[in-house]
């Protein structure tokens, strides 16, 4: 494909399977850091991946985000972990060009679908929908953070944890 389109850039670190995984019913946790390298984190409300898989957008509720949005504006450094509660399958993406972007028309629907799918997965391992809703919290407002994944790691607990997804 690369040859045909003339795109000389390296392959994106996400393959289509990973892209589907991080857009499914998985826990999304976003981390940043401030000028003193003090990290902050927030549980996200969903994710979308661009068609070419080079751009990932995560949704967060701004009133829960602490210093995170300021950190993004200040330095663009980001790490996001995606984990499926029922299987522990986990991957982490990192980027250095994160910025807050305008919400797309589909983002509210993405957040609603994410809550539904994630809640279903939690219920599979014995949690109640009420608990899932509480942890996710109401999301009256959303903010979108977009970044280019520069590295991707497999983080499922076990001997392979920490390995890069792209050999």
């Amino acid at each position: 494909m690369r040859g045909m389109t003339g795109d000389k850039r390296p392959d994106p670190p996400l393959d289509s399977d990973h892209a589907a995984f991080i857009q499914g019913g998985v826990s999304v946790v976003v981390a940043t850091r401030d000028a003193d390298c003090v990290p902050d984190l927030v549980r996200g409300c969903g994710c979308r991946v661009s068609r070419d898989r080079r751009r990932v957008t995560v949704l967060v509720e701004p009133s829960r985000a602490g210093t995170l949005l300021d950190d993004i504006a200040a330095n663009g450094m980001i790490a996001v972990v995606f984990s499926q509660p029922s299987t522990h399958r986990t991957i982490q993406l990192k980027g250095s060009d994160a910025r807050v972007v305008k919400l797309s028309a589909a983002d509210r629907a993405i957040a609603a679908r994410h809550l539904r799918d994630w809640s279903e997965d939690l219920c599979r391992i014995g949690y109640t929908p009420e608990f899932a809703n509480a942890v996710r919290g109401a999301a009256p407002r959303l903010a979108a953070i977009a970044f280019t994944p520069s590295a991707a790691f497999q983080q499922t607990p076990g001997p392979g944890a920490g390995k890069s997804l792209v050999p």
Partner: protein
Amino acid sequence: MPLTLHAIRPCFEGAVPAVIATCALDGTPNVSYISEVHYVDARHVALSFQFFSKTRQNVLENPRATVVVIHPDTGAQYKLAVRYLRTEDSGPLFECMKAKLAGIASHAGMTGVFRLRGSDVYRVESITEVYGTSIAALPARSAGAAELRCCMARLSSASDLAGLLDALLDGLAAHFGIAQAMVLMGDAAGEKLYTVASRGYPQSGVGAEIRPGEGVIGTAALARTPIRISHATSEFGYGRAMREDARSRGITAGIEQEIAFPGLPESQSQIAVPILAGERLLGVLFAESAETSRFGYDEEDALAVLASHVGAVAALLEERDDAHEEAPASAQSASPEGAPLRIRRYAENDSIFAGEDYLIKGVAGAILWKLLRNFVDEQRTEHTNRELRLDPTIRLPDLSENLEARLILLQRRLEERCPALGIEKTGRGRFRFNVRRPVRLAEIPR
């Protein structure tokens, strides 16, 4: 009122995984799941260190991190700003976290994958509730002070060790709804713990032994710290594997018999709390339940308070026991009737059999043999604790050996297995050995 770690202790039960964000010195953030965030005290938490990960590398170079934990009942999230201090790879904190992690791993289907390498201790610098993530207000905690008070009142009225342990187990059932519990006492040499009292099992299991380091009970004894698990785990449970191990050890000695350990086959939650008298380990209080996550931090606190009171009262009773030994009363035991009972003693390990039934071994076995010999040779039935303590044939390991616990063990084994013989307390520091059938003694040499 500012949030305290104490107020959110249920978050540290390991029911819901926590997340931690760290940052490398080059400014690259990292975010990762943590299996176990452990409440250490009002200012500290400890995180399980299981893998050599980026998180670990980061905190070693930049100790400031942020942890988010979730309340298992309300779903509320709490953000902790923490600073890495040190790693402990042995000792009470480590043992406690290791056992809890085994339960968490079992619950998560990660047995064998989650293995504790160290307990990373962090100072908590601030706690904030994450906006809008709770279904309900933090439940008002039952401090358990009223229940504790009722239990303590029962303990204080006990006049001997047997009564004290009965009061403890009855109190747990009556005031805390803890139906399955037992007390194991340790020998002074620290070689084993033996069950002296239990509640809620089909068989009392009195006399059943556990080695220090074995399962939840043995670990609590060895590390001298409460050990608690919320989900059944083969690693720390005393399940079938341990019983089979015990059986195989029983066979090696040829003549040795094991008393089956009492216990719930479907046990999910277990807690073991050491009973200490000052520095000395007297024994372990153990409780269990078929319910998962039955024992939380509040129950751990309550059991720890009770165990410490039991330790202090037991030590006091020991002293009184020595101080009040009086001359034996005149013999009043009934004369033996019926068919003679053949009693064998194997010199190798002091194990005693009545007919074909295994009764007891070790120090308690040696005591029983002495009582039987005194009865046969001198028709003597009245005894004092002091005389047993001074007897060279009983080979009490040392003076701090808890003789009273051995006598309780012996008394209860006889009640259960050999009603023809019995021990009856006749006063502080003395007792009567009742022999209701004629006995024929046989010694089997080594």
